[in-house]
């Protein structure tokens, strides 16, 4: 069998509380991610979705458990290359960009850090990245506040792409966006998945979004994985009682599919 790109086993996060019982935000979560696969994590607020994502991305220390990337254990002090390989896309597209930097400088940071690019090759790479995410080249001299939310999220994606990662962790990347913009961003992410084989760990509370983008789904409740399986299987024949409630709660448009 092909080796998984990312192998997470028995990942836990415990918060110590003074004078009270410890709080387990994530309990023994295990999953794997293959190349080019999109794994959706669903669950209500407080279920530990973001905590898992942040631990995978190295933004939060792990209490126990292990993360293997490409067959190699990920140390708690991550190497530069591991950091480069797992990139994060944030929910709030505007506040996740430095307001004092121009777009080109935002994109230049990972390019300088990881690839030591400068001069013309740096400029060319920035233009290519803007082109990849569908932002006109002329926007490079603008500041984030001069862009719309959807455009800022495209820049957020371009910044993640700049590092040439194999995994992108997307934490509610479209929740702050309008529906027509959301569908454009999802299309962009799917296109990157096809063309570059990027794998996603995708968090969204909108189950329709998860259904659209994920190949496999992890259902979390109170820090635990209650169900996992192929997206169509989980959505169409949920096994766990909680998943069933979740699926039943989706506002349904009871009409057969058609393009309008």
């Amino acid at each position: 069998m092909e080796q998984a790109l990312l192998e997470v086993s028995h990942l836990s996060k415990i918060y110590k509380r003074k004078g009270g019982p410890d709080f387990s935000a994530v309990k023994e979560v295990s999953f794997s991610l293959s190349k080019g696969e999109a794994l959706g994590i669903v669950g209500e607020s407080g279920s530990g979705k973001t905590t898992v994502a942040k631990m995978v991305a190295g933004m939060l220390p792990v209490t126990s458990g292990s993360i293997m990337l490409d067959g190699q254990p990920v140390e708690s002090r991550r190497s530069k290359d591991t950091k480069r390989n797992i990139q994060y896309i944030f929910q709030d597209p505007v506040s996740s960009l430095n307001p004092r930097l121009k777009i080109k400088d935002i994109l230049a940071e990972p390019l300088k850090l990881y690839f030591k690019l400068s001069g013309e090759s740096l400029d060319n790479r920035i233009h290519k990245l803007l082109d990849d995410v569908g932002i006109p080249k002329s926007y490079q001299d603008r500041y984030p506040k001069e862009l719309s939310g959807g455009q800022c999220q495209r820049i957020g994606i371009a910044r993640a792409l700049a590092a040439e990662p194999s995994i992108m962790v997307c934490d509610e990347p479209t929740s702050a966006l309008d529906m027509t913009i959301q569908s454009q961003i999802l299309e962009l992410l799917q296109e990157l998945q096809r063309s570059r084989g990027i794998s996603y760990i995708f968090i969204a509370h909108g189950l329709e979004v998860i259904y659209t983008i994920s190949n496999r789904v992890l259902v979390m409740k109170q820090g635990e994985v209650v169900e996992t399986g192929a997206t169509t299987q989980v959505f169409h024949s949920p096994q766990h009682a909680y998943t069933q409630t979740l699926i039943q709660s989706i506002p349904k448009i009871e009409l057969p599919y058609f393009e309008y």
Partner: protein
Amino acid sequence: MSEEKLLEIKDLSVAFRKNQVTTPVFSGLSFDIYQGETVCLVGESGSGKSVTAKAIMRLLPTDSVSYPEGEIRFNGQDLLSHSEREMEQIRGDQIAMVFQDALSALNPVYTIGTQMVDLIRLHAKEKLSRRQALAQAKKLLAQVDIRHADEVVKQYPFQLSGGMRQRVMIAMALSSRPRLLIADEPTTALDVTVQSNILKLIRQLKEQFGMTILFITHDLGVVYEMADRVLVLRQGELVESGTRDEIFTRPRHTYTKQLLNSMPRIYFQEQTELP
């Protein structure tokens, strides 16, 4: 649903004024809401959904907003010609509003009980003691399915979950039995399971009290579950209106089609047809 118009908006224009420059938000907006129906107002951010809601309640800042033209008739009265004092009789009493962000809509330094008692006494037809008002508050909380009302009235907003806070907001909105409930994205910040409970609750209350509802949302799934009629707004212009089934099966305007096509869908129907 009856034939009686509860709310009539005729050629309404709203303009924002800043540094002596007047910018129209929209002009010539017209629609009616009939007694007992649920009308969903959909559109993207900046389309004027919330401005419409706030204009009806006259909640837009008076120093920078003007209504150059048009009428808002509620129950036959022209709200735009009402004085602030007359509006206070309408707001909360005949038209109530539920906001998206219940945490910031509630006062953080008073308990739920205190806030509800003040509101109930303010709108009461006859004088009520605080004790009587508190009993009413608990009854209202029970109506929105809050089972431990005795505890909740002693709690502060931050101690409640998002779903509970939204229930409290709805209970407060219902306290005066309003004829029109304006719900501005009431479930957008909530989890799906909680959302489904709140939507069910609003539908139940509508049936129970014959309330008329103006429901603002950008979620078309929610629209399909709630609406009798749908109004599609884009950049301050009403591009299409129709019954729910007309909008979802025979949308006419390109923008409506675009909106419907952009919604991520889960195809439960197809699956159930499979052997």
